[in-house]
C-alpha cells in the first residue's frame, strides 16, 4: 500500500504494561501521543506513517508532470486541486508521525537519503494524459481501500489524519474515472490510449497492496496493535472485485487474461503480479526511482533559502517586538 512491507519492531517492554496496553486496544480505545506505548508500537508507527506521508508527497510528481499539459482548463484546475490535496495528505500524516517524537526535518531527510521508502507505484512513469485518468481511478482507488479501514486504527492522530484524507479521496478516484471514461468513449485513438494506460498500470496497482502476508510475523503484530487492519490479499481481492466491472463498463479489455469470475468464491480470480519486479522497484531499480528522489532532493535544496529567510524574518520581528515592550 502507501506503506508497503512495514517491518514491525520487536518490543521488549514490561509484560504487565504490554498486556494492559493490548487490553486498551482490544477494547477499542484510541492511543494518544502522551499515553504509554510499547517501544515497538512507536517505532513501527513512525516507519508506517512516515512511509505513508512520503508516498503522498512523492505521489505528486507523476501527476504534477501533466498539469501544464492538461487538455482543457477545467481538467487542469481539477488536476491541480487533486495534486494540492496530496500535499495536504502528506502534511496531515507528517504531523501525526511527529506526535511520536520524530521531527519533520528528520522525516524529510530520511526520505531524501533513502533510509525511508515510499510506495513502489510512484516509481512508474506517467507517459500521457490517459495515465492521469488511470492513476486517479486505479491508484487512488487502491489507496482508498487501504485508508478507509485505517480510519479505525488504534493511534488517535493517525486515525484522525485518515478521516481527513478519506473525505478527499473519493474526489480523486472519481475525477480519474471521469477522465479515462472520456477517452474510453472518445475516438479510436483515445480509446487505445485508455486501454494502454490500464494495461500498464494494472499490475503496478496490484503491487501496491504488497506481497501476500498471510503468514508474516510482522503483520500479525501490527494487526494485533490495530495499525494494520486487513491482510494484503484481502484488500487486493477487494480491489480486483470492485475494478473489473468498472473496466467492463468502460468497454475496455481486461488487462490480465487470468481474470475470471469464480462462482464458488464469489470473487474474481486474477494473476499475481511479477513479484521479482516489485522487489526490484523497492530496491531502487524501478523506471523512475532515481528521478523521483532527485526531484525531491532538488526541491528541498532549492527551498532552503526560503525556509531560512522566513525564519530569520520571524525572529527579527519577534526581537523587535520584545525591544519595543
Amino acid at each position, binding site marked *: 500500500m502507501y506503506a508497503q512491507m512495514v517491518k514491525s519492531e520487536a518490543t521488549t517492554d514490561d509484560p504487565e504494561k504490554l498486556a494492559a496496553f493490548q487490553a486498551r486496544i482490544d477494547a477499542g480505545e484510541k492511543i*494518544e501521543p*502522551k*499515553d*504509554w506505548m510499547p517501544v515497538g508500537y512507536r517505532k513501527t508507527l513512525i516507519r508506517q506513517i512516515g512511509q505513508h506521508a512520503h508516498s503522498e508527497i512523492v505521489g505528486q510528481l507523476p501527476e504534477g508532470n501533466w498539469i501544464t499539459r492538461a487538455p482543457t482548463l477545467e481538467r487542469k484546475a481539477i488536476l491541480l*486541486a487533486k495534486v*494540492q*490535496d496530496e500535499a*495536504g495528505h502528506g*502534511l*496531515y500524516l507528517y*504531523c501525526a508521525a*511527529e506526535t511520536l517524537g520524530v*521531527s*519533520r*526535518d528528520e522525516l524529510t531527510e530520511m526520505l531524501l537519503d533513502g533510509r525511508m521508502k515510499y510506495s513502489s507505484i510512484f516509481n512508474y512513469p506517467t507517459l500521457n494524459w490517459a495515465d492521469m485518468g488511470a492513476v486517479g481511478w486505479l491508484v487512488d482507488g487502491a489507496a482508498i481501500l487501504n485508508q478507509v479501514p485505517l480510519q479505525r486504527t488504534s493511534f488517535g492522530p493517525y486515525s*484522525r*489524519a485518515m478521516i*481527513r484524507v478519506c473525505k*478527499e479521496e473519493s474526489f480523486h478516484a472519481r475525477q480519474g474515472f471521469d477522465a479515462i471514461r472520456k477517452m474510453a468513449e472518445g475516438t479510436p485513438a483515445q480509446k487505445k490510449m485508455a486501454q494502454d494506460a490500464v494495461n500498464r498500470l494494472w499490475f503496478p496497482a496490484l503491487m501496491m497492496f504488497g506481497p501476500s502476508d498471510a503468514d508474516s510475523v510482522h503483520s500479525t503484530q501490527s494487526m494485533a496493535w490495530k495499525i494494520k487492519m486487513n491482510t494484503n490479499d484481502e484488500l487486493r481481492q477487494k480491489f480486483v472485485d470492485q475494478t473489473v466491472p468498472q473496466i467492463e463498463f468502460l468497454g475496455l479489455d481486461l488487462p490480465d487474461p487470468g481474470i475470471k469470475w469464480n462462482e464458488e468464491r464469489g470473487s474474481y480470480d486474477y494473476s499475481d503480479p511479477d513479484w521479482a519486479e516489485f522487489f526490484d522497484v523497492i530496491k531502487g531499480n524501478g523506471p523512475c526511482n532515481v528521478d523521483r528522489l532527485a526531484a525531491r532532493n532538488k526541491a528541498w535544496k532549492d527551498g532552503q533559502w526560503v*525556509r*531560512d529567510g*522566513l*525564519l530569520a*524574518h*520571524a525572529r527579527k*520581528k*519577534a526581537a523587535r517586538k520584545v525591544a519595543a515592550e
Partner: protein
Amino acid sequence: MKNEWPLWEIFIRGQHGMSHRHVGSLHAPDAEMAIKNARDVYTRRNEGVSIWAVEANHIAASSPSDKGPLYEPSESKVYRHPTFFDIPDEVGAM
C-alpha cells in the same frame, strides 16, 4: 539554534455560531504564515469561517496519568444531572 519552523495547532470555526475546533497542526515561521498555511491546508472546501493558530509549545495539557484525580470526583455526583430528580408528570415540562 535549530532551524526548523515551529509547530502550530490550528483551530477552525466551521460555521457562524459554532466554536472553534482543533483540526490539526502545521509548521510555519510565524503566526501570520501559520494562518495563511492553515487556510491552504484546512479550508480548501469551505470548512471554515475563522482560523486560530496557537504555537504548540504554548499549549498546557493535562497528563494522562492525572485522569483519576481530575475526573473521578465527578463520577459520584449524580445529582448534577437533571435526570437525578423525579418530577411528577402532572407538573408538566421542566
